[in-house]
């Protein structure tokens, strides 16, 4: 199995065509600790729908947090649309983010529409009022996700699946070019998941949005995505769309086991080296 990424042939000339470029990224939460992410090289072209898979504790969320500018690399460089994520300035509006679970109080006095409108606050600017046109857009997005009739409902009263649809509508408010989804369907029933993935795939098809989605349901999303990458501390492999076939799905299924074995072998290796 190839541990390097397969999309590296783009070269420097195509930077304008890249949504994400990661070079030699390592990250640890504190200096003494084992790195959570280790020497990652990764590129994602614009308008690609990527599924990021890998075992729990393998650094997927950490990787997303670095892409979002919440954490900064210990080593290496990360660029989103050619800029460091913590210093995106107005480009920040080009990134939409849907968390695995938003941490809000279920009795918080906000409606589904209020939550979607929050997605326009950054673009609107401090102190200014949200424009009427934004309100219409928010209502359209809610309709697109099939929850227009719940616009005035308190967000905490919606089912989790409906909440996630409101949160993706929120993320889409500023018309982002990159959408980052962190296991958005955990806790949603199978029908709800299918509906959710269909909607996301439609966004990708209709608007050409670049999507990075962390997911476990590889079988369910395989038909929708262009590329799959497996992250377990390092980027184990990253396959292009035309390579997604039975073999890749097989690899995806064994990704967890594979990653585990590699890690285990590395420890055994180190152990022997230290002994010598």
């Amino acid at each position, binding site marked *: 199995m190839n541990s390097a990424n397969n999309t590296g042939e783009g070269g420097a000339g195509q930077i304008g065509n890249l949504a994400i470029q990661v070079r030699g990224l390592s990250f640890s939460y504190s200096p003494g600790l084992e790195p959570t992410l280790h020497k990652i090289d990764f590129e994602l072209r614009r308008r690609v729908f990527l599924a990021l898979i890998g075992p729990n504790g393998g650094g997927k969320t950490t990787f997303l947090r670095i892409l*979002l*500018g*919440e954490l900064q690399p210990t080593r290496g460089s990360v660029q989103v649309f050619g800029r460091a994520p913590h210093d*995106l300035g107005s480009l*920040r*509006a080009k990134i939409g*983010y849907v*968390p695995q679970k*938003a*941490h*809000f*109080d279920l*009795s*918080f*006095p*906000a*409606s589904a529409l*209020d*939550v979607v409108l*929050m*997605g326009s*606050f*950054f673009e*609107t600017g*401090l*102190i200014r*009022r*949200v424009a009427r046109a934004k309100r219409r857009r928010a209502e359209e997005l809610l309709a697109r996700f099939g929850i227009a009739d719940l616009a005035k409902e*308190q967000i905490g009263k919606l089912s989790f699946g409906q909440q996630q649809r409101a949160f993706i509508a929120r993320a889409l408010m500023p018309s982002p070019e990159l959408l980052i989804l962190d296991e958005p369907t955990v806790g949603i029933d199978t029908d709800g998941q299918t509906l959710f993935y269909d909607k996301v795939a439609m966004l990708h098809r209709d608007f050409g949005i670049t999507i990075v989605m962390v997911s476990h349901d590889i079988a369910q999303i395989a038909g929708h995505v262009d590329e799959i990458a497996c992250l377990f501390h390092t980027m184990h492999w990253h396959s292009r769309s035309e390579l997604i076939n039975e073999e890749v799905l097989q690899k995806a299924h064994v990704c967890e086991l594979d990653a585990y074995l590699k890690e285990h072998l590395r420890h055994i290796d180190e152990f022997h080296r230290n002994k010598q």
Partner: protein
Amino acid sequence: MGSDISFLESLQTFEFMRHAFVAGLIIGITCSILSVYVVLKRLAFIGQGISHSAFGGVALALLLFEDSAFADLKVDAVTLVFCLAVAVLIGWASRGRRISGDSAIGIFFAVSMAAGVIFIALRQRYTGEVFSYLFGNILGVSSSDIVAISVLAALVLGVILAFFKEIFFFCFDERLAAVSGLPTRFLHYLLLILLALTIVISIKVVGIILVSAFLVIPGATAKLLSTSIKKMLIISAAIGIASSLIGLFVSYHLEIPSGATIVLVQFLTLITAMLVRRLRA
């Protein structure tokens, strides 16, 4: 029990009653509006920390300036600076990782009060007015106090109105707000500074101990009855105004302390709201 003249007559007759009435209204509104955010962002304990720390500020100010010219003004100014400094320090400590937020607040709270007790002991004289800072003295509000209270209250409410949408998102989900590009660090300190300002204008009137109730009960009550932020703000402000007026009225007729009476009236509205919610469900 009871007074020789009615509450309304007393308002016409006595200036100190009019001052009490106006101060009660302004503080009722300001505290109850802010209490919405205290409840939503769970700042109740931080509020307690800042208000109790104010005791250290008041004691220091009394020690330094009691006999000088414009003593009142100087005491207010020192208390204001002290509370703002504590608010910023608590804000800084609660974002750090070395000491948890609630430990930091507990430490500031106790250390400021300890310093206050020592400052008072150093004065070596009658300490009656310190008591009025602890429990408030709404009947001792001067016209210059009214001016100061009005200006600071207008500032607090104006800032809340200006940053309405940002504070709303910040209280809803701070992490999502940060990832969406909102200046969450600024909003964190802004809320604490507004809290400190509100506490400073309230302690003369309702006291260090009771201001916590003003900053929590109206918001907590309103939250039980509302599904939108606007409704919550309106209900909370209505509770703030009504409880101040009813409390003042009742305390006048029963000749009991006003600040404490207002707090008990607020508590009754909370119990009523809980019952209403229960009946509705």
